[in-house]
């Protein structure tokens, strides 16, 4: 019995050990399985998250690369659409660009997006990116759609490359969009209002800056006046008109307005917008074979011009039958080689007395009968006491120019009946048979530059009209390639490349005699006059139906130059008004208080593209101020009490390359100008792409519109 008990005892122990071992093993297995499972789940989660960010990095990298293609004014092609990959840790990231069918599209950017309402040529692309782990498994897949818009610049009331300051003295209202790629400074002595204008078809407002938005001045650490910008909101009466909101000073110092504060405008004020590529200033350069200031790769305005007129300053010559001189005006082709046929036609136009006087029915007359439609304003010689910083000199004497300007009535000289010297004075009447064949006139002194200017003067209206009435030797009047006519005029001289005293001046063009027009035809032709040198516009330009009585319709028009100068309708006065001695540019030497420098109400309908000075950074004082947007056009008269009625768009692509005269303020102290009443508006007709001036420059805008993650 005792032995049985001992035997049972041993068996129980064995069974117990086996059972316990089994239990422990099952427990261990269960724990191991659960830990393994949890580790797997956690690992998968971590892997998914890490993979997602890896894929996202590919997306960002791809978008950055592709964005640069567009910002360089190119469009992806060929290998740009090939898949690309790179290693990120132990992962492989692949990304690829694909193009959405239907590119490009001409669209109006919908309301709600940046630059809404603008006409744009838009391309849409998609980038997809995936990340793979070491086993080749796709961990995450993400995608993004982005669009690339080529947006015409003349859809802004003001568009600047560098810092833009809007600091008007008198009240000033801007309707439309304002953009700068730099910093935007808003201030006023009284009130600056940026608002919509439904009555003028300006339905929205957008004020955007590539960098920051500042309330106050840039040249001084001060903040004054009232600045009001419309919000993208219309909740208070009158309805149908965006609600204004004051951008306040915060103390008396200039301040940077934070994003959070700008958000109250609901998108009508945006800073740090970035992503905008704008044309370089060399888009207006001629070939280097034409001018020392030219480029080996001439700009688009030269390359696509319908007519290229060059004043060769250092080539002796003149009109056939004329006295000869130190400069030749001719027409050249895109390569810069004289186009004999067109040059002969140009000379015929310049000396067509019958046409100029309108003596033959159906031909002419000139808008300035008796005045040569193309001429140049010469620079008096130092021997006459004239020179830089020397406006008070013997500039009215023929002998002050070399060679001497012929006396009126003499061979090749101005017509008889003019004042003695023939330098400035000339009867502005019908031509007297034998036309003036000397296309030189007396000098113009630019008080801001403190220089005598060499100006190539061009009557655009006469050129277009004469062309259409004489078999169209220059261009087809109804040419709509590039949106219409593009006339490039320049001065090729020794100082073309740097700071100089050159300029191109258009005059006599209160109407542009082209078929149709804005509001009349669906796609009016229009004209752009461009130069790499300073651009001057004298008198009413493309006034259109604003004239009283109503004149011909205005055309899409733009004036493009190194800087833009405006001379009033009164600038060329009749002899009686200027004492028979100071017609044309003679009055430019007078003090601002002299009545001969008084301006007259003037109307201009044209987009401007020119350079503006930049106020240096760092509150360097009023002497460093560039004059702000209100001084984008450079004035040279006393406009006090008179108005400049302007409709168009102000675009600055940077600092002028050829003029550097400081804006030193108004009044007699500077003797440059007194400001006009600024009746300035964006031309709402430009909202229709068909009405944009020929060869309107575009900026490139790249925007991500969609980020997606593919879920499996």
């Amino acid at each position, binding site marked *: 019995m005792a032995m049985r008990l001992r035997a049972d005892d041993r068996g129980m122990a064995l069974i117990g050990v086996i059972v316990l071992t089994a239990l422990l093993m099952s427990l261990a297995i269960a724990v191991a399985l659960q830990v393994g499972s949890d580790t797997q789940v956690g690992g998968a989660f971590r892997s998914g998250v890490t993979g997602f960010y890896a894929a996202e990095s590919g997306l960002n990298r791809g978008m950055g690369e592709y964005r640069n293609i567009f910002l360089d004014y190119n469009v992806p092609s060929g290998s740009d659409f090939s898949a690309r990959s790179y290693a990120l840790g132990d992962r492989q990231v692949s990304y690829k660009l694909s193009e959405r069918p239907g590119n490009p599209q001409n669209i109006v950017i919908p309301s709600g*997006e940046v630059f809404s309402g603008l006409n744009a040529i838009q391309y849409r692309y998609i980038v997809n990116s995936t990340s793979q782990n070491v086993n080749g498994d796709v961990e995450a897949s993400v995608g993004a759609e982005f669009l690339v818009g080529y947006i015409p610049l003349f859809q802004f009331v003001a568009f600047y490359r560098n810092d833009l300051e809007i600091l008007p003295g008198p009240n000033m209202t801007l309707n439309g969009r304002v953009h700068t790629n730099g910093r935007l400074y808003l201030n006023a002595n009284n009130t600056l209002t940026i608002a919509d204008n439904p009555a003028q078809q300006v339905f929205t407002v957008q004020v955007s800056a590539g960098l920051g938005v500042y309330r106050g001045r840039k040249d001084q650490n001060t903040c004054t006046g009232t600045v009001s910008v419309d919000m993208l*909101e219309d909740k208070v009466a009158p309805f149908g008109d965006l609600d204004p909101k004051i951008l306040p000073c915060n103390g008396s110092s200039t301040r940077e307005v934070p994003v*959070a504060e700008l958000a109250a405008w609901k998108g009508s004020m945006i800073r740090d917008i970035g992503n905008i590529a704008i044309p370089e200033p060399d888009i207006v350069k001629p070939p280097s074979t034409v001018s020392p200031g030219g480029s080996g790769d001439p700009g688009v305005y030269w390359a696509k011009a319908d007519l290229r007129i060059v004043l060769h300053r250092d080539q002796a010559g003149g009109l056939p039958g004329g006295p000869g001189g130190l400069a030749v005006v001719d027409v050249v082709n895109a390569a810069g080689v004289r186009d004999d046929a067109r040059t002969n036609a140009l000379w015929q136009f310049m000396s067509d007395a019958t046409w100029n006087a309108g003596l033959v029915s159906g031909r002419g007359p000139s808008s300035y009968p008796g005045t040569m439609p193309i001429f140049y304003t010469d620079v008096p010689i130092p021997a006459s006491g004239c020179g830089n910083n020397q406006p008070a000199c013997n500039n009215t004497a023929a002998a002050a120019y070399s060679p001497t300007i012929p006396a009126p009535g003499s061979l090749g000289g101005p017509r008889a009946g003019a004042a003695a010297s023939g330098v400035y004075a000339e009867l502005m009447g019908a031509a007297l048979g034998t036309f003036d064949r000397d296309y030189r006139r007396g000098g113009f002194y630019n008080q801001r530059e403190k220089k005598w200017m060499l100006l190539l003067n061009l009557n655009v209206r006469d050129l277009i009209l004469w062309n259409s009435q004489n078999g169209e030797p220059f261009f087809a009047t109804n040419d709509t390639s590039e949106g219409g006519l593009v006339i490039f005029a320049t001065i090729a001289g020794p100082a073309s490349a740097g700071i100089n005293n050159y300029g191109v001046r258009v005059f006599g063009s209160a109407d542009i005699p082209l078929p149709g027009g804005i509001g009349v035809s669906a796609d009016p032709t229009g004209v752009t006059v461009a130069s790499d040198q300073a651009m001057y516009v004298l008198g009413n330009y493309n006034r259109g139906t604003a004239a009283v009585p109503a004149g011909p319709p205005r055309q899409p028009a733009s004036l493009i130059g190194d800087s833009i100068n405006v001379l009033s309708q009164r600038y060329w006065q009749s002899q009686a008004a200027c004492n028979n001695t100071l017609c044309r540019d003679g009055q430019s030497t007078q003090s601002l208080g002299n009545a001969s420098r008084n301006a007259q109400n003037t109307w201009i309908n044209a987009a401007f593209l020119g350079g503006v000075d930049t106020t240096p950074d760092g509150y360097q004082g009023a002497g460093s101020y560039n004059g702000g947007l209100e001084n984008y056009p450079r004035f040279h008269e006393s406009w006090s009490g008179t108005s400049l009625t302007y409709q168009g768009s102000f675009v600055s692509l940077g600092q002028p390359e050829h003029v550097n005269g400081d804006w030193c303020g108004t009044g007699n102290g500077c003797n440059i100008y007194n400001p006009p009443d600024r009746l300035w508006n964006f031309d709402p007709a430009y909202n229709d792409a068909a009405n944009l001036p020929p060869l309107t420059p575009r900026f490139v805008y790249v925007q991500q519109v969609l980020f997606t993650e593919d879920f499996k």
Partner: protein
Amino acid sequence: MGVMLMGLAVVATSGMFVAGKEHMKRQSREVEATQAARAAVDMIIRDLRLGGACLPVTGDFISLDGINNGNTDQITTRTGLTRPDLSCIRTSVPTGATVTASGGVFSVSSSEGFSPGMRAYIRHPDGLGEYFDVIAVPSPTQLAKEQPLSRNYPETSGVYAIDERRFYLQNFTNWRGTVPELVLQVGNQSPQSFAVGIEKLNIQYQLRRNCPPCDVVDLPANNAEWSVVEQVLVNVTARSELPDATGSYLRRTVSVGVKPRNLLPQ
């Protein structure tokens, strides 16, 4: 002696087994709670990342919305719908056209991608807009709306196809008692249970204001604050499905910051 030893071994091992089993149960509940929280957060993150896609970036802010209610917040994300190639379904009222408030059919630049039954948003150039349902697509340049609008919309007004998702918490009752859950509602459809056991949803918003460290608010107070949301801070607490022996639930909290990539132009 052997029986005693075996008894001791059995008792000790049984104790270990029971403890191990309890640990397994606890770990199982932890995994369950953690996975529930992760799943909920993952879904919210994904929708937040996409929020605002293809929608207006100016004017009234419509991409995100929410309700602040302590630990039971709500959040709504809106995105634009896309075509199969990912391009946004959106268009504009063309030059010269007007969408009249009472009219049915109106002109758009392109109706490509729109289809009957879609919800859409029309935005006035003044920044305000309203929703409507597309009832038909009569032509490549026309849409038909179901509801009358509150006012007319002029040229350049934007028209966007949208998708709206709302996350919020609610309770339901089963044989075990009251159970919290995260609910997802898509548009005007019936809400659907998304994750069971989610008992806290706390959403905060980091603004691009006073940075660094940047303001954090429980809910943006107005359009201006919504427009500067830079990051959404999501805090989710999930509990296990079953309580332990003491009646306590295991809880796990997951916190993440999500940058909505589509809210503002890049």
